[in-house]
């Protein structure tokens, strides 16, 4: 760790992992409710479990992004963070606000939560992923502004690199697009527009910039490849991301009452969204192959390469599967979407946060560069357990989705929704089992922070011998 203030990243990472565990537990509850509808009813009904599962995901990823930024920016800017105290204060504000919101979801009926938080003053609740009470949303804005001030000032006063500027653009975009969540037009079409301008422009726009810059940072650090080479790739990737991603928003406009030309614009541009992800895969492997040194943190490199591959598969390939409007006509809102969502979020955003944690945590905990061999081996086990099980979750959901599309929408005499749900229950059971394996992987991951903590660091020499 080159700068003292990078230490503020640590609580962010710990909170992220903690909330990740919570997200997966609710995911398992939710998965079971697909086949046992009254499981845990009335304490945790399906809609609440789903809301908590998705909201926790977003919150912990935001914790992860912020932690990553706090670790990355001082090193790139070559100076201490503008205000470590503000960063810590915002950590607690965000954590308490997040916890209160989740408790609100769990303890009070949603409509009661709306009344309690005076939603009628500025109605923003009720939209998927953006269910947070208005006051929480305002809190998020405050945290985001303080965070951007902190990061922005550090970058502006210090060395400006492509990596940190791309990260900053991504983070500013994240904050700006969130503002659309405060506008709830009565017109349903417009309502959907504004909703997608948060959701889509986040995950298929600015978040990809954050992903790209974190990946570039970790690759610069672990491979020793020239910064110029990596920055050039980053430019090309983000240009392609923005061109395809922004106009690709059109793939959400097919069936919401938007003009017909979106069928074409959405199909063509979103069909090209896999390209930047593919470039990212080529980029990551290329850089690792051209490495000038063998970094002792093998686990971090594994996560980085895993991110590149899984983001391409989940976001790129599984996104492409149902992005063309004639296909989407049948698949929208089915388990195909859920399959894509699981692999894309894991492959792109979960994995990039875990990549950064894997790279930074050893230093944050006082190591020179890497954890002990034993700890790394366990971490790599957790990588494979989680990654393989998410692949299976995706495949099972894809199977469920194909069957669902056929039975419910494509066959000569379509069946009603609930009848079809019964028929695809087997896939849901298998998904639940894969989910349990994922939980085991996650617990292994958590354990890797405690196992081998007192053993000496892995060194390049040992790592080389092991790989030879």
């Amino acid at each position, binding site marked *: 760790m080159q700068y003292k203030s990078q230490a503020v990243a640590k609580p962010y990472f710990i909170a992220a992992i903690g909330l990740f565990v919570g997200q997966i537990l609710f995911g398992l509850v939710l998965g079971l409710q697909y086949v046992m509808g009254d499981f845990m009813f009335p304490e945790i009904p399906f809609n609440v479990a789903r809301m908590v599962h998705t909201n926790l995901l977003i919150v912990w990823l935001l914790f992860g992004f912020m932690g990553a930024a706090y670790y990355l920016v001082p090193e790139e800017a070559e100076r201490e963070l503008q205000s470590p105290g503000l960063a810590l204060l915002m950590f607690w504000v965000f954590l308490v606000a997040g916890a209160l919101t989740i408790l609100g979801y769990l303890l009070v009926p949603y409509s009661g939560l709306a009344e309690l938080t005076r939603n009628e003053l500025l109605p923003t609740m009720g939209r998927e992923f953006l269910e947070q009470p208005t006051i929480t949303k305002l809190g998020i804005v405050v945290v985001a502004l303080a965070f951007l001030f902190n990061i922005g000032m550090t970058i502006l006063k210090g060395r400006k690199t492509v990596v940190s500027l791309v990260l900053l653009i991504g983070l500013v975009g994240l904050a700006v697009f969130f503002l659309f969540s405060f506008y709830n037009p009565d017109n349903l079409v417009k309502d959907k527009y504004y909703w997608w301008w948060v959701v889509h422009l986040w995950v298929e726009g600015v978040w990809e910039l954050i992903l790209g810059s974190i990946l570039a940072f970790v690759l610069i650090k672990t491979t020793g490849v020239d910064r110029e080479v990596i920055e*050039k*790739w980053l*430019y*090309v990737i983000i*240009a*392609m991301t923005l*061109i*395809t991603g922004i106009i690709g928003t059109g793939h959400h406009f097919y069936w919401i009452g938007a*003009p*017909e*030309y979106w069928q*074409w*614009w959405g199909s*063509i*541009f979103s*069909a*090209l969204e896999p*390209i930047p992800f593919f*470039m990212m895969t080529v980029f990551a492997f290329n850089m690792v192959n051209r490495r000038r040194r063998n970094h002792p943190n093998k686990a971090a490199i594994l996560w980085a390469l895993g991110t590149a591959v899984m983001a391409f598969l989940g976001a790129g390939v599984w996104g492409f599967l149902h992005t063309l409007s004639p296909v989407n006509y049948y698949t929208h809102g089915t388990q195909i979407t859920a399959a894509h969502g699981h692999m894309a979020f894991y492959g792109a955003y979960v994995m990039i946060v875990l990549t950064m944690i894997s790279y930074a945590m050893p230093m944050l905990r006082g190591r020179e560069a890497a954890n002990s061999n034993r700890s790394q081996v366990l971490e790599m086990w957790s990588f494979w357990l989680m990654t393989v099980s998410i692949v299976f979750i995706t495949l099972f959901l894809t199977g469920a989705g194909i069957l669902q599309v056929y039975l419910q929408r494509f066959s000569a005499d379509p069946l009603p929704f609930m009848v079809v749900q019964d028929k695809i229950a087997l896939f849901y059971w298998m998904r639940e089992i894969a989910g349990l394996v994922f939980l085991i992987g996650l617990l292994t991951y958590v354990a890797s922070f405690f196992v081998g903590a007192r053993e000496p660091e892995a060194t390049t020499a040992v790592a080389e011998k092991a790989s030879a």
Partner: protein
Amino acid sequence: MSNDMKISSATPGDAQRVAAPNYPPGDLAIWIFILAELLVFAVFFAAYAFTRMNHVELFNEYQATLNRDAALINTLALLTSSYFVMRGVVAAREGNNAFCARWLWAAVAMGVVFVVVKSAEYAHHLGAGVSLSTNTFYMFYLSLTFFHFMHVILGMVILVAVAVKARGDGYSVEDHTGVETGASYWHMVDLLWLILFPLVYVMR
């Protein structure tokens, strides 16, 4: 893959072609980008052609409302500008920054011709109440040409940046990759229009 140049058996007429590189002129990154752009347009062109299959009469009828003379001027303007850009690259390779800048400014001027003519066409169509939702032909016509139009503008920005740097003696015989990079992008803009012009304005 090695990036080093190998001496090829040069024929006498090709005295200057002592080295045949593995990579095209300009930064490799711009070529990756060019490939992606070309792919986008290829998809768009194919979509136009296959949609036309089901609406031949509609496409033929509304194609007749386009201004083919304007398209001719624009094609000639882009070809000329590409030629100028290429001469600019020659000048840069010979280390003549002043000439390079002059050729590039001439190319930008041709770009301005394109933008003005195309804008007049848009003004005419929009004035006639045409929009993306008017019919499928106009949807494609406006989408394709406008998307290309944006590329012309981006290309001009790049050319201006290169020209300014050349004016400031920013390139040399050894290092003029920047000129080649900008030139490659501009030639791509030209290349796209070369397909777009017959497809949308002439073929029926």
